[in-house]
């Protein structure tokens, strides 16, 4: 089936070429990082994780969100997701590939990465994260590819696949919960030390992921004439709405806890993010953008008319996507590390190489996504090919 991705229109190749430019640039900067060290990033003694891990966290959510489609389809026999399950699974695959790349890139000593498997520390959450992420990647690859292969052959899926699909469904929330546990178990990081971290991660994932799928599906409708169907769009839109409300509600609960209790350590990160702390407010414009996007998105989603209109739905999805992206990636990381253990503020801004490397990873993800979707579309196309 891979050969199906090797044939395509000029636009397809242009798009792949466009992505490859970013991949090459990102790779060149990564080589630089390998030789010079992580010093080429904006990271510091106080903010020791940054843009890479922020994107990683966000993308884990995107990967986990596949379950919002796969679960209704397989568990509740929600037929209108029929044409979408593969898109969901392959979105998870490419998101996970980006996640793993980002983790490797963030390492100071990537050549020793196998030490995690050679000398695993059972009390380290990162070890479990490596296991669940790779496991989920494998599960999704197996499920997606096997289903697609049976489409290709024109047979029904093999029976051994069912249990694996159910395993994948159970596995999906796990990847995000474990990722949340990376943060949520650290003493002294007030912003992270909250039990609601994992559920918040999940609801954010379940809103941004389907929002991303709405955007992708509408692109596919335009460029590839592949329509998931009006009802599937609406189903996704509802998923986005409910979980997005939950997401910001959770956020407000945290704000309440911090300010009602009045504990300085809890207030500080939130103050820093939105209004400034010790005279520093570098990220406030971004966070407020997230809030505005959230309001816009919510309004568009809640009004039935705009939700049912595809253009406004896509706009709403974009708003949701970027709102969650800002809060969950950069907000989360910067908030966690600020103020530092000495109650000081060390500002963090990603450097140009850092951003380019991350863009390179996104481009790689999009490349993988494009190729996988291309194969799905080609297989689908071959199923119906009446010339008229």
């Amino acid at each position, binding site marked *: *089936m*891979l*050969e199906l991705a090797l044939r395509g229109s000029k636009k397809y190749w242009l798009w792949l070429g466009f992505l490859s430019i970013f991949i090459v640039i990102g790779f060149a900067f990564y080589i630089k990082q390998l030789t010079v060290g992580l010093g080429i990033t904006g990271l510091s003694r106080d903010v020791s994780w940054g843009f890479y891990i922020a994107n990683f966290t966000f993308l884990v959510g995107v990967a986990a969100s596949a379950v919002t489609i796969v679960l209704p389809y397989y568990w509740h026999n929600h037929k209108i997701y029929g044409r979408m399950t593969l898109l969901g699974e392959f979105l998870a695959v490419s998101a996970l590939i980006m996640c793993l790349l980002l983790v490797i890139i963030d390492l100071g000593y990537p*050549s*020793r*990465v*196998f030490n995690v498997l*050679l000398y695993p520390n059972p009390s380290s959450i990162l070890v479990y994260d490596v296991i669940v992420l790779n496991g989920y990647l494998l599960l999704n690859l197996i499920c997606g590819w096997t289903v697609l*292969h049976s489409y*290709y*052959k*024109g*047979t029904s899926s093999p029976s051994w696949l069912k249990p694996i699909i159910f395993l994948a469904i159970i596995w999906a929330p796990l990847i995000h919960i474990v990722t949340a546990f990376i943060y949520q178990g650290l003493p002294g990081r007030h912003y992270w030390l909250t039990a609601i971290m994992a559920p918040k991660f999940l609801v954010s994932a379940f809103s941004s992921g389907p929002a991303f799928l709405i955007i992708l599906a509408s692109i596919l409708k335009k460029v590839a004439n592949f329509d998931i169907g009006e009802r599937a769009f609406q189903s996704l839109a509802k998923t986005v709405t409910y979980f997005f409300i939950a997401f910001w509600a959770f956020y407000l609960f945290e704000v309440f806890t911090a300010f009602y209790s009045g504990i300085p350590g809890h207030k500080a990160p939130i103050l820093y993010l939105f209004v400034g702390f010790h005279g520093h407010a570098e990220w406030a414009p971004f966070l407020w953008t997230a809030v505005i996007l959230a309001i816009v998105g919510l309004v568009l989603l809640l009004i039935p008319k705009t939700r049912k209109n595809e253009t406004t739905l896509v706009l709403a999805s974009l708003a949701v996507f970027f709102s969650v992206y800002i809060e969950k990636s950069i907000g989360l990381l910067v908030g966690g590390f600020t103020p530092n253990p000495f109650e000081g503020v060390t500002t963090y801004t990603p450097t140009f190489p850092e951003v380019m490397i991350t863009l390179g990873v996104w481009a790689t993800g999009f490349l993988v996504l494009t190729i996988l979707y291309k194969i799905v579309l080609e297989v689908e196309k071959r199923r119906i090919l009446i010339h008229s």
Partner: protein
Amino acid sequence: MWNDLFVSILALIILILVPLVGVGLLGLDYLFGIVIPYLAFTIFIGGLIYRMIYWAKSPQPFKITTTCGQQKSLPWIKHSRLEAPASTWEVGLRMFFEVFLFRSLFRNLRADLVGKRLVYGSAKWLWLGAILFHLGFFIIIIRHLRFFVHPVPDFITLLDEIDGFFQLTVPTLYVSDILILLGLVFLLLRRLVDAKVNYISYASDYFPLLLIIAIVVSGILMRIFTKVDLYAVKELAYGLVTFKPVLPKAEIGVIFYVHLFLVSSLAVYFPFSKLVHMIGIFFSPTRNLPNDNRMVRHVNPWDYPVKYRTYCEWQEEFRDVLEEAGIPIDDDWCKETQKKA
């Protein structure tokens, strides 16, 4: 099947025992370190040259390109340059893809009979296994050059660094070593497990796989486990290629001689077995000829004239019916051709 496998394992064991006894017990370092490698290499080169001449002696009478895509015809129809090459340049491209990426193998399918329906699944495992093995082999050969050339060129050092990037062991285990082993074991298992491939396999199919596995394993053993004196190895190897063979004073270790002897065996076996596909692929007429039969005339050196029924003979036989049916008779042509004859 088991017979064939057993015989090839036996052959391999003998090949391993020979240097073990020869160097380990009898101390024939000179024989195994210098004489046999020279001999093997001579046979290898001589054999390959013989093969090439042997094939080249027979002409390719017809241009029988296998076309796997649209021919070059009308200008507005998209010509598939790779699958139906029409120029030498396009043939070169096609050969490149065949030699380095095993393009034809990439097309592989697997047919299954589901009830009364034939279904065709994608089957790229063979391609993957073959690529892992061949590319791994290629990289290892290049990397080994560091024993034979001096000073070691930068690109080999670089390859070395990339390949040994992951610090799994000290010294680092090469990624290509793991991949080639995976590839080889897959290919061997496939031969044993897939009924069709098993049915067509002889001892001469198992043997090269086993031999190469043994070479790779002995190499990995040398690098990671029973470390050998690399300086002594370089002294020996460098001596061999500069035709000033010396046995290093330092002890190298029997395992090295096993490795070297197996490599020599492979070299000797190479030109006289299916392994010559490496050279043969370049001679393959269905792949190395352009599909330009109607553009350029291909000449067959042993072409000979044939006797056929000429128009005049034919007209004579059917003159009556031709006349009756009112189909023109052409006596001028007969006179003309007779005059020429």
